[in-house]
């Protein structure tokens, strides 16, 4: 018995060590990306000798990069909002109403998940080509909404499946109309899931390249801009802007997690 435990302990260490290695693999590229943002050399590479913050100043005063960044933020905001707005009613109906052919509808909604972004981008390009003015920001927003819809719907759907229906029943028994019930019961209690769906959509859209590349026309999102740069030059400016993005998204992830945890604890405290 003791032997078995010792053995388990040793395999436990091996497992822990292995996990640490894989986390190293996960973060090695990101750390590299960030380190070279502080490297004074024109072309990023080892050894790191002179450190500078100059690339951040250079990146954040580069008109082209800033324009692409703002395009990306707009596209991500619009497509994430649109995805959540479309997904919420669908998720409500799927989770709470007995629908004919529900598995088929779910399958249809999930389908874009498995289609390569490249293929969707090309299809949308062929679809949009005859329509004037749509290739550009509008096209990218539509492409990203299509890609985000499945994730947003699934997040909201699984949240609503686990929703305490008794609260809705109570509101109805107290005479609340459907609309009031939605605004005052369902929506506030679904806020964490809605935020999760929105953040997921925003992030996917913000980083998406291939589909956007085909339907962006002459517009450039940040990934398109960076892609274009990388074809010609390796500049630490790219590392600097990447560092800013990583920092912002990690901060946002942590803040969102904290907010969701606090709300959950708050709800539990209120119930007790």
């Amino acid at each position, binding site marked *: 018995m003791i032997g078995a435990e010792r053995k388990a302990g040793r395999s436990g260490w091996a497992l822990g060590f292995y996990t640490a290695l894989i986390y190293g693999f996960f973060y090695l*590229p990101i750390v*590299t*990306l960030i380190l070279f943002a502080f490297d004074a050399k024109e072309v990023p590479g*080892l050894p790191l000798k002179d450190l500078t913050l100059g690339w951040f100043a250079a990146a954040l005063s580069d008109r082209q990069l800033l324009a692409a960044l703002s395009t990306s933020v707009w596209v991500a905001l619009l497509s994430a909002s649109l995805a959540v707005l479309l997904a919420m009613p*669908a998720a409500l*109906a799927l989770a709470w109403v007995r629908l004919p052919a529900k598995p088929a509808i779910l399958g249809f909604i999930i389908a874009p998940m498995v289609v390569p972004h490249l293929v969707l981008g090309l299809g949308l390009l062929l679809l949009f080509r005859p329509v004037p003015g749509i290739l550009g920001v509008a096209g990218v927003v539509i492409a990203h909404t*299509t890609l985000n819809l499945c994730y947003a719907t699934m997040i909201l759907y699984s949240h609503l499946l686990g929703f305490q229906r008794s609260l809705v029943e109570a509101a109805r028994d107290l005479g609340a109309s459907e609309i009031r019930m939605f605004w005052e019961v369902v929506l506030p209690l679904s806020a964490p899931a809605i935020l999760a769906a929105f953040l997921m959509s925003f992030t996917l859209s913000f980083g998406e*390249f291939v589909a956007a590349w085909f339907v962006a026309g002459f517009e450039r999102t940040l990934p398109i801009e*960076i892609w274009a740069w990388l074809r010609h030059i390796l500049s630490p400016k790219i590392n600097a802007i990447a560092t800013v993005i*990583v920092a912002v998204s990690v901060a946002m992830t942590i803040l969102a997690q904290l907010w969701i945890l606090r709300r959950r604890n708050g709800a539990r405290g209120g119930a007790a």
Partner: protein
Amino acid sequence: MLLRRRHGTASRDKHKVSPIAPVLLFQTVFFVAPIGILFVYSFWRMQDFRLITEFSFHNYREMANNPLLIKAFFLSLRVALVVTVVCAVLAFPIAYFISKKAGRWKVACLVAVIIPFWTSFVLRAYAWKLLLGERGVINTGLVSTGIIEAPLSYLLYSPFATAIGLIYGFLPFMVMPIYTSLEKVKDSWIDAAADLGASPARATWEVTLPLCIPGLVVGCVFTFIFALGEYVIPAMLGGGKDLLMAQAIVLEFELSQNWPGGAAISVVLLAIVFAVVAAVLRWVKMEEVL
């Protein structure tokens, strides 16, 4: 009461079908229609830079007779398969660690798996370029520590580099579903196996692993499909010599302006994707894994 409720749901059923309508409409116009157009294009052809809108199998015949495309096709399948197997082998122990050993660090460990995934593929591929290049971090490190004498040139711009990038990109997609499956395996079941005299290895092999198969299958399907259709990583890390399918599609569209040809390759890619999904859905129920 019962009667009223039943009546109530029935009448609600009727007007509650409409909340799904916007999604279905949006997806029909911007998902079904584009793929339909691609499908139609694949039967047209280009002649002297003009689109001939006559039905023919021209592009598919060309594809079958193009040795470069055949090579890209099989290389894509091979790379996707290798990436899937490697990801599955790498992911299981981590998912196991997070689910069973991480204790109160569980959420932090999970979030740490997802965070890299929140950085654009373009940036992550660029990061691997910095790592794998001839003057990259890994080569410089290995040379300066004396492990190798000259930089390894095959690290970057090779199917090897593509595979590393794809494994890196899709490992989270493998970890998450396996983790979800593992969460459903109760510790007491593993303890029971141990009490009956099974070694930890045997308990893992005969109890935990079989119960994880749904998660493993979902992870494998997604990894395989994503790896098969991925463009950014092979384009940035794979170099121009050994093309994958996604690169071939872009070349047809961008360089040759042969849209019907590119559409035909896309249709073949889509057919493989849907065949894999359909095959898997035959023996794994969707409810089990979502």
